[in-house]
């Protein structure tokens, strides 16, 4: 390890190759960042699909049939992308972090296997029926298939977060020396599965997925409505998206506030990094922070930030009522997470969260007045916001995952100890480059497909001229709303 680092510095010929630990961490971070977009799409879109399918089958309402057909196509593409990006995730525990798998195998193997057996199979099998089986099964089985796909998606998230929450607040095990290393042996399955973090994380993550998808559905609907005001199906979709946001966006803020206090209790170092709180003592709450000079971007500290802070409120919130309570500072620790990444990610997430509440209130008010689609400004704001739910979800995930560094399992195993000893810089860097290239292409392809689906929808609605050569659009089909 040390040899590789010094080699990388000393010899310009090998500078291009990253040390295996860094390459593995970046690779895992990158692959999970892409995977989580598709996983969250499945979790967030599933309730919409169930609702549209149920309404379409039950009432035969053309609007819902149209929405079901459109969003099921999006779901299908997202699910395939989620599957193919998820499989590398499950193998990287072994390829890049085998010592983590050895230490934690007894604790994480069960939940990961339950995820495959209880959730992933359910989702994959019934998605096959949902996508290809309309003519082969009855209405009831068809709707049930949509429900089971949704149950699969939500259950899949549950088991994955059982593993992640255990890594944040591990319990229900003891360390036993085995084959020259300390291995976690399961002692209490209930404690190990239902860790203190689990319910916080599950609610926050599922709700974040719902918000991200509501913004995506809202943005696409706003665009279609902006192009064609009388598209009844899409006016309905916009209305549903706004209603979902009205509930989910404020819930996320209230829940997130309480979640923050829980993090302070269980992972004080992460909490200190979120606030760039270095000196142990009274903590202020920074409501708002902007860099005073560029160094704040890489090393945020009270000195180089312009902040609007509530003195003592950090202590007050963390202790549950005492404004002078002592909050542990980062200076207490030998090794800290990259503070700037955690601090700014946290601010981006919170800032976006408040933006979504504003958007929800604006939309809710317009809906109440019955003028949801009259304002171009609102429609454009929804369009701009369509990818921002994902931005908040990713930055929130970075707070959680980068914030608990240097630990991969809090206070049990460091990330540096978890990495493969046999992995070389060349191998690790080569696969990292491979994953970057392939996943950028995947995201580009997914966005292209979404763009085409929207264009096709607009063409069918008669909002734009249908493409001429090589297309199967019939000129008399259109404006069926």
């Amino acid at each position, binding site marked *: 390890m040390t040899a590789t680092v010094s080699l990388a510095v000393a010899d310009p010929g090998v500078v291009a190759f990253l040390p295996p630990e860094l390459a593995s961490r970046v690779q895992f971070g990158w692959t999970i960042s892409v995977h989580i977009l598709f996983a969250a799409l499945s979790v967030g879109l599933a309730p919409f699909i169930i609702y549209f399918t149920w309404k379409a089958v039950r009432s035969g309402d053309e609007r819902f049939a149209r929405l079901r057909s459109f969003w099921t*196509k999006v779901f*299908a*593409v997202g*699910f*395939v992308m989620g*599957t*193919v*990006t*998820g*499989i*590398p995730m*499950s*193998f990287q*525990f*072994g*390829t890049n972090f*085998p010592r983590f*798998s*050895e230490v*934690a*195998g*007894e*604790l994480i*193997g*069960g939940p*990961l*296997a*339950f995820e*495959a*057996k*209880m959730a*992933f*199979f359910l989702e*994959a*099998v019934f*998605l*096959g*029926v949902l*996508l*290809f*089986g309309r*003519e082969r099964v009855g209405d009831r089985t068809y709707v049930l298939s949509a429900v089971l796909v949704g149950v699969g998606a939500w259950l899949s998230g549950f088991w994955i977060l059982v593993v992640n929450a255990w890594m944040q607040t591990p319990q229900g095990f003891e360390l036993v020396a085995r084959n020259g290393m300390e291995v976690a*042996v*399961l*002692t209490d*399955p*209930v404690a190990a599965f239902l860790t203190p973090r689990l319910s916080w994380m599950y609610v926050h993550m599922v709700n974040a997925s719902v918000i991200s998808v509501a913004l995506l559905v809202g943005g696409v609907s706003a665009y279609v409505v902006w192009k064609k005001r009388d598209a009844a199906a899409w006016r309905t979709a916009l209305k549903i998206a706004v209603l979902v946001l009205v509930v989910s966006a404020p819930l996320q803020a209230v829940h997130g506030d309480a979640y923050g206090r829980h993090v302070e209790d269980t992972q004080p170092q992460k909490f200190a990094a979120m606030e760039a709180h270095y000196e142990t003592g009274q903590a202020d709450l920074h409501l708002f922070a902007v860099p005073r000079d560029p160094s704040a971007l890489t090393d945020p500290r009270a000195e180089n930030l312009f902040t609007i802070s509530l003195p003592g409120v950090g202590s007050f919130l963390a202790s549950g009522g005492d404004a002078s309570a002592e909050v542990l500072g980062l200076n207490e620790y030998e090794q800290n997470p990259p503070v700037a990444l955690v601090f700014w990610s946290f601010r981006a997430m919170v800032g976006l969260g408040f933006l979504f509440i504003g958007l929800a209130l604006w939309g809710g008010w317009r809906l109440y007045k019955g003028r949801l689609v009259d304002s171009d400004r609102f429609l454009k704001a929804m369009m701009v916001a369509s990818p921002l739910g994902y931005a908040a979800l990713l930055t929130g995930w970075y707070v959680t995952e980068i914030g608990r560094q240097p630990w991969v399992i809090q206070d049990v195993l460091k990330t540096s100890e978890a990495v*493969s000893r*046999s*992995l070389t810089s060349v*191998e690790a860097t080569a*696969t990292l480059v*491979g994953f970057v290239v*392939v996943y950028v292409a*995947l995201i580009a*392809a997914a966005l*292209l*497909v979404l763009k*085409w689906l929207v264009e096709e929808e607009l063409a069918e609605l008669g909002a734009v001229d249908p493409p001429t050569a*090589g297309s199967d659009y019939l000129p008399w089909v259109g404006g069926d709303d």
Partner: protein
Amino acid sequence: MTDLLPVDDYLVESLPEVWFAVVVFALGMYVVLDGFDFGIGMLYATREEEDRETLLAAFGPVWDANEVWLVAFGTMLLAAFPRVYSRLLADNYLLVIGFVLALLFRGVAPELREQREDEDWQRTFDRLFVAGSTLAPLLFGILAGRWVFDVPALSAPALLTGVGLVAVSVATGAAFLAAKTEPALAAELRDYGVLATLAYLGGVVALLATVVVTDPGGAAGTVLSAPGAAVVGLSVLAGLAGVVLARRGQYRRWLASALALPALLSVLLGLLLYPQVYPPTGLTVRAAVVSPLALNLVTVMGLPVLLLVLWYFKFLYGVFSGPVSGSYGG
């Protein structure tokens, strides 16, 4: 829950061996089910546009569910034998990453291809589909060969295992398609299937001859033992029966005998490993298995679910039984 589950003893004395069998079973399900998906992907290269739509319509509803058996295999290996999971994957870094990337291309290519009626776009994804469907079984077979025989990737036993898995995938893919498509297409695919079956049998004989001669990791004894010889004999019988049934046009029976080939291959893998689970370090089932409480837990929570999964597969294949209809994308 700790009151309900024994902490210091396995629920039954042989539970570690049961889990070894369960893991090999999941691997077998994967090799059998995704094997014919790979076969469809390779046979796709031999087809013109019209047939390609039929092939994709056969592949579409089932491939993703089939691929989940890989995840089931990997996660159950981690749950029961974490040291094997970590060594196997870490010792085969580039092979494993290459394999998952091949799977990735195989999975996304048909989905993306069908999004656009553009020749260049479709040709690009057709190539990726064929390449992914060929490389995935090749690399997975090499990985299995390295695991079982403790040999380098570029050695006769590992390469022959890889090529064997490619051949058997073509055979099962052809049989699956022949059973589900109209006679003219079925007859053309049959010829590829027969050729692939004979190539597979030849490959197995070559592999076992190499193993008997070079004896990697002491595997020769297993091959020559009664169970080893029985599995090899059954494979030869199933292969030859498949060739006869294919020629007679009895495609459903041919499919049954073709699917027996990868299933028997998985049994052979189990026999070659046992009582070890990771020959490169000589790790045995008993030495690698997790503690009794952890294994008892995954047994009571996981095994009943596995039976439920088998039931949904029966349902899925029931829904999509009979001739292929429609096209990819419903």
